């Protein structure tokens, strides 16, 4: 089947839905989502959205800018970050006007809380900058935006996954998707396509991400000749519930929770003397792993304790209900009385598809635009998070750049027409799928995926070194070879998850290789990327963004400069 829409948005998380709401007045908008829209992973976000409203204590956008630049370990593009933090108050008020049920101060204003890395006076003390709705901020913002889409009659293609991007000459003219419910392929033609497909945490064994976070959009862009930027920067959130990896929000520490080792000691005092437990996430994750490596984990095991027992029942029930619920269900303990076992968990990828500040996808280091193609959210790299993202800046990123992408698409499509009406791109995918199903390969997707997840955890997570990265690249390479012989035994059309997962695995293996290669070439440590063999930040050689291109000879690494405006790089101490 072939359909036409002016705007096609891939992904129904916050970035995609915000862009949809923006485009609604100007044309026909369709959102394609691999899961039913309200199941998108944005709904799992807990902690909050940052904005310098100053509702609880004095705050300024200049401080928010500094914190984000420093948090990024000076790799973030400061012009883009400035746009984001200056737009933040407008974003919050707009959300509130749409109906988001933010938690409130006694006077009735939007409440704000402390969060890692957010300070007053350029790093002096933590500041209350994160607006929140208990610990389910993502859920309520997603629900509100989805309801706005329904109100404005946005068309949805739920449970459709994208198989390929369609290009007409050099312009992106649509996508081919597979309708999970029927197994039928659809060719969706568009004047503008926005990729808002989220992250790829499922590449790692321990992750906070849902099963759908397999990096499809990033991989499809990469296969189309678009480079991927800063992929070595993968954030491990310090407090994943042990052993599942489920997110225990930084909000717990924002409300006063403390990390303790086997000796009951508040060890963050040593690693981050000023802000302690509220340091940037990469700093805390490394601290936890050093503690456990040096046998100070609880019972000598691979986890430490997050202690909320001094917060009191009322605060926990009021502000941290979801977290308390997870802990009770999955561990059978109660955070009011027991400390929570936590370990670092793969949470977010700072890298992604390079864009300008309006979501237009860039195809090289010179900033050449790919007409018709846009990206926003976790799958994009503007870059506002650089080498490490601060908590609560992601929801802000989604809403600022989701909207800006929508504005850019509205402006740009005037010059575009629909591409050629050939059904060829769809037929090509149909035949690829038929071949895959017919092939009777001997390799099982589950074994390959588990091996990939272990390899990435071992060689590509918090602590990296040259030998490990090279071994990792070799192993992923051999998994990619084996993947060519993958067998899909379920031959049915409807809800063929085995087929979908086999295709997702292909994306994940490509991204794994890009991540490890980027990490190997960056011979320094910066933000979330830590090299045991190059433990120091080396601005002279590496104050630049990594770009990996797909070439016939294999992936190739190039670089582009970082935009430094107000803050010159300095030592990053918390």
């Amino acid at each position, binding site marked *: 089947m072939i359909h036409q829409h002016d705007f096609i948005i891939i992904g129904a998380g916050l970035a995609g839905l915000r862009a949809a709401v923006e485009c609604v007045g100007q044309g026909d908008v369709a959102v394609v989502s691999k899961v039913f829209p309200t199941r998108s992973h944005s709904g*799992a976000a807990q902690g909050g959205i940052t904005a310098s409203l100053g509702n609880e204590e004095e705050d300024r956008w200049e401080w928010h800018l500094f914190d984000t630049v420093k948090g990024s370990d000076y790799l973030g593009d400061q012009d883009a970050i400035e746009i984001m933090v200056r737009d933040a108050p407008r974003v919050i008020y707009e959300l509130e006007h749409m109906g988001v049920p933010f938690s409130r101060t006694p006077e009735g204003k939007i409440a704000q809380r402390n969060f890692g890395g957010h300070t007053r006076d350029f790093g002096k003390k933590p500041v209350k900058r994160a607006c929140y709705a208990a610990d389910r901020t993502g859920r309520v913002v997603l629900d509100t935006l989805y309801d706005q889409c329904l109100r404005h009659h946005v068309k949805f293609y739920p449970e459709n996954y994208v198989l390929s991007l369609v290009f007409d000459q050099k312009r992106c003219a649509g996508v081919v998707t597979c309708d999970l419910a029927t197994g039928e392929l659809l060719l969706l033609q568009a004047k503008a396509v926005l990729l808002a497909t989220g992250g790829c945490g499922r590449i790692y064994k321990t992750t906070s991400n849902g099963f759908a976070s397999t990096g499809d959009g990033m991989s499809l862009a990469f296969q189309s000749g678009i480079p991927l930027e800063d992929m070595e920067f993968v954030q491990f959130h310090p407090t994943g519930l042990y052993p599942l990896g489920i997110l225990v929000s930084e909000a717990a520490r924002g409300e006063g929770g403390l990390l303790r080792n086997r000796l009951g000691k508040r060890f963050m005092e040593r690693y981050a003397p000023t802000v302690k437990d509220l340091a940037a996430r990469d700093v805390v994750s490394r601290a936890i792993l050093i503690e456990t490596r040096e046998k100070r984990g609880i019972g000598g095991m691979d986890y430490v304790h997050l202690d909320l027992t001094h917060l009191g029942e009322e605060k926990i029930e009021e502000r941290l209900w979801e977290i308390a619920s997870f802990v009770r269900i999955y561990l059978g303990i109660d955070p009011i009385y027991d400390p929570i076992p936590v370990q670092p968990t793969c949470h977010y990828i700072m890298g992604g598809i390079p864009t300008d500040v309006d979501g237009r996808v860039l195809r090289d280091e010179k900033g050449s635009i790919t007409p018709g193609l846009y990206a926003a959210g976790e799958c994009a790299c503007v870059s506002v998070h650089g080498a490490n993202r601060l908590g609560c800046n992601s929801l802000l990123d989604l809403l600022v750049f989701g909207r800006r992408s929508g504005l850019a698409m509205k402006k740009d499509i005037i010059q575009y027409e629909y591409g050629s009406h050939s059904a060829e791109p769809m037929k090509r995918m149909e035949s690829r799928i038929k071949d895959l199903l017919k092939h009777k390969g001997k390799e099982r997707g589950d074994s390959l995926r588990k091996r990939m997840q272990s390899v990435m955890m071992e060689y590509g997570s918090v602590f990296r070194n040259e030998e490990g990265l090279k071994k990792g690249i070799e192993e992923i390479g051999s998994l990619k070879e084996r993947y060519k012989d993958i067998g899909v035994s379920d031959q049915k059309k409807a809800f063929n998850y085995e087929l979908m997962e086999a295709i997702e695995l292909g994306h994940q293996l490509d991204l794994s290789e890009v991540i490890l290669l980027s990490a190997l070439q960056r011979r320094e440590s910066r933000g979330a990327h830590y090299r045991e063999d190059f433990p120091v930040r080396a601005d002279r050689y590496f104050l630049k963004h990594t770009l990996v291109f797909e070439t016939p000879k294999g992936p190739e690494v190039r670089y582009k400069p970082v935009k430094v405006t107000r803050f010159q790089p300095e030592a990053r101490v918390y």
Partner: protein
Amino acid sequence: MLIRLKIFRFDPEKDEKPYYQTYEVEADPMDRLLDCLNRIRWEQDPTLSFRMSCGHGVCGSDGMRINGVCGLACQKLVRSFKEEVLIEPLPVFKVVKDLIVDLDPFFEKYQSIKPYLITQTPPPDQERKQLPEEHRQFKEAIRCILCACCTASCPVNQNRETENYVGPAALVRAFRYLFDSRDEASEERMALLDQEEGAWGCQTLWKCTEVCPKDIPVTKQIGQIKKRIYEAKNK
């Protein structure tokens, strides 16, 4: 430990009618039922179909009937079961394949109650004020993840003759807006809900409240809607 899962199967592409298939899975007591289902799919039978996403009870994808009670497969741990677990799709809804049901009617009912803030007064430059006491009125309702367990468990919805009842989930969302101090469409909302298929369809049977994975006091909230409608009409 070894656990046996007896699972409802139906594939309209090949089956004339549904049947049950039993699988044995090696599992840790702290594993989720969802982990067992995935193990079956990845290691034994790739044709088994069910929805899932977050794996930790926040997205609402994996609602199913487990040993006769609706709940999320990712929130049930193996250790809370004896040797055999019966797994079936959510009742009330048409089965599409195995444990996957057609939730379109569920979402249509949800949409019918106007699930968005309606205001006439233009918004201020900053936030509309709302006191913590006002927020507390509806804050439990915002936990809803649209998993459909409540509506699937409701005897009124299960009964063919009263199946047009809008259902507990839609009413929870209606409650959320009716009791949000910022909303300015009370009259419009109450008119919508003041129907036999609206709030009055609830027979106070409590099944919804029993199964809600987010501990929302559903029956109580529906009761509060009824009270509000009654008071408005009898001023």
